[in-house]
């Protein structure tokens, strides 16, 4: 039997890792995650969940008299060189079991353990010496007694959530690796269902029904236009930049506030943590910078005014004629306002540990080119034109790592503000080989008039 090679040749003479070894490593990694999840799950189940479950289900109820109070102290080195203390309130109880009367210190629970001695003492204060209370003892070890029952939901959540996540990720990855082992790439690509369930992140982009690899266009015809049939949604990089700046400013300053409150409380308590104060300075500068960037981006995004594009029909087909309306709101003078129909290729690839996307515009047809546009304060600037899609044009195409996208692109140069670019995607279908009433290309309004 021959072992698979470590390297294989891919198209384009690029060397990549061999798929068999990759699948082996993938399976090994997920198998280790699964084992880790099972191991920690078993540890947490036996150390936390099972004892608590037994107290609530197996322990026998009795009545106990409180004889004494005490604090159990545990010390451990954490971190090395530093001793950390924890305290646990304990009560000495006299109670009756089936074997007779017993005396024992109550068993402490993880929920009652605290690093604050005062807090542990307060926990003891509610119990009165000589008083009687319900208690529960372990029938298998009658000297083990508790005065309180119930579940610590936080610990149960931790006990289930962390190992559960490891088991889920590891198990699904292992099943995926085992399912793909020894199967051809065509066989794997042809089988759906469980494969999609096991690898939800690998879902291909949504496509149009009956048109494989043509992007879905439902979201592009949600809004009716004021003059033409549809108002196209905007897909602008500057909006994502704005959201990014906003999120960064919000999260960074939230961290800053938490640090500042901690430093303020220290100061009020008469302590000064110089490291914390030294950290607060640069954090404050970056936080203010984030807010300034966000406000500036928000100003630039809103000051230009809204751009709207309406189209007479959608989706488009090669050879079709369509009307398009460009509407620009805002104040001031637009030195230039252009709209063009563009075809962009988009390829996503991995370079080292990074995922990069390259875009190339390979076809561009200018549709509108206006100079010195001044929208009136109460209305918007509008211009309407017609355009045709070449009969041999490539249709819109999308797959997980590649795309061919058609879009209407509006570029503006204003008098005082920075230039802007706004993108309105459209979908072009291939010519339909099975024309029917439901799927036949619809004629545009402009075509119908002629």
């Amino acid at each position, binding site marked *: 039997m021959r072992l698979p090679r470590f390297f*294989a040749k891919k198209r384009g003479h690029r060397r990549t890792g061999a798929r068999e070894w990759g699948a082996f490593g993938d399976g090994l990694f997920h198998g280790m995650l699964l084992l880790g999840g099972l191991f920690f799950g078993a540890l947490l189940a036996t150390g936390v969940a099972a004892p608590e479950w037994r107290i609530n289900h197996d322990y026998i109820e009795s009545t106990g008299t409180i004889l004494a109070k005490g604090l159990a102290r545990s010390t451990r080195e954490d971190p090395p060189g530093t001793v950390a203390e924890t305290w646990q309130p304990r009560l000495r109880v006299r109670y009756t079991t089936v074997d007779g009367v017993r005396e024992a210190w109550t068993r402490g629970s993880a929920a009652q353990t605290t690093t604050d001695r005062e807090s542990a003492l307060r926990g003891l204060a509610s119990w009165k010496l000589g008083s009687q209370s319900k208690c529960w003892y372990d029938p298998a070890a009658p000297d083990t007694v508790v005065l309180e029952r119930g579940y610590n939901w936080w610990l149960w959540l931790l006990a289930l959530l962390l190992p559960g996540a490891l088991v889920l990720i590891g198990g699904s990855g292992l099943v995926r690796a085992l399912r793909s082992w020894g199967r051809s790439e065509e066989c794997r690509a*042809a089988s759906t269902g469980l494969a999609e369930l096991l690898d939800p992140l690998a879902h291909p982009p949504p496509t149009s029904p009956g048109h494989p690899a043509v992007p879905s266009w439902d979201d592009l015809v949600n809004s009716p236009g004021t003059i033409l049939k549809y108002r196209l949604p905007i897909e602008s990089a500057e909006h994502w930049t704005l959201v990014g700046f906003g999120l960064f400013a919000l999260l960074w300053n939230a961290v800053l506030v938490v640090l500042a409150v901690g430093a303020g409380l220290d100061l009020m308590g008469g302590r000064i943590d110089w490291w914390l104060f030294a950290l607060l300075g640069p954090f404050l500068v970056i936080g203010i910078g984030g807010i300034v960037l966000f406000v500036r981006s928000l100003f630039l995004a809103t000051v230009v005014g809204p751009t709207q594009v309406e189209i007479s029909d959608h989706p488009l087909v090669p050879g079709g004629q369509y009307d398009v309306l460009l509407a620009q709101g805002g104040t001031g003078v637009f030195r230039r306002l252009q709209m063009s129909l563009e075809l962009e290729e988009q390829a996503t690839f991995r370079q080292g540990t990074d995922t990069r996307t390259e875009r190339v515009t*390979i076809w561009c047809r200018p549709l509108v080119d206006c100079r010195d546009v001044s929208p009136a304060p109460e209305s918007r600037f509008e211009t309407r034109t017609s355009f045709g899609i070449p009969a041999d044009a*490539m249709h819109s195409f999308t797959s997980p790592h590649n795309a061919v996208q058609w879009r209407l692109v509006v570029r503006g140069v204003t008098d005082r503000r920075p230039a802007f670019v706004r993108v309105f995607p459209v979908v072009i279908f291939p010519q339909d080989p099975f024309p029917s009433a439901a799927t036949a290309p619809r004629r545009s309004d402009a075509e119908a008039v002629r």
Partner: protein
Amino acid sequence: MSDLQNRAGLNRDGQERVGASPQVDVQFDRPARRYQPGDRLAVRYRIDDCDGDRIHAIEHSVVWYTEGKGEEDLGVHFFQRVTDRSLRSSRVVAGDFAASLPRSPLSYEGLIVKVRWCVRVRVFFDGSRDFVSEHVFEMGDVPPARLPPPEA
């Protein structure tokens, strides 16, 4: 292109096989190998020169895949696995299959994205070895992309 890949003899990852390779001859029902969406594609294939290796399964498929700068994406339109006992004893294996082509995607020769259609015949030998033969055909009439002339 398809014939080059067939002669080279590719294993599961498009990797060249060392040593003898079977010869896979594929005949399309249209010699020009040009189809339109919705057309019926019919293929006959013949596998020779297995050099005593026992075939235990054959997969034939009609697929499209992307080439270019991005990671390769693959779409399977038609897939069939043949595991016949008669394959084991035959020195020459022949078969045929047919499929109706879908509406999309069309074959496309872009600058950084290319879409290709092909017929693949994958032969599985005893001992977990396999050999794939790939035969490209064209779907649609989209001309190759050209970069727009630079603006003056």
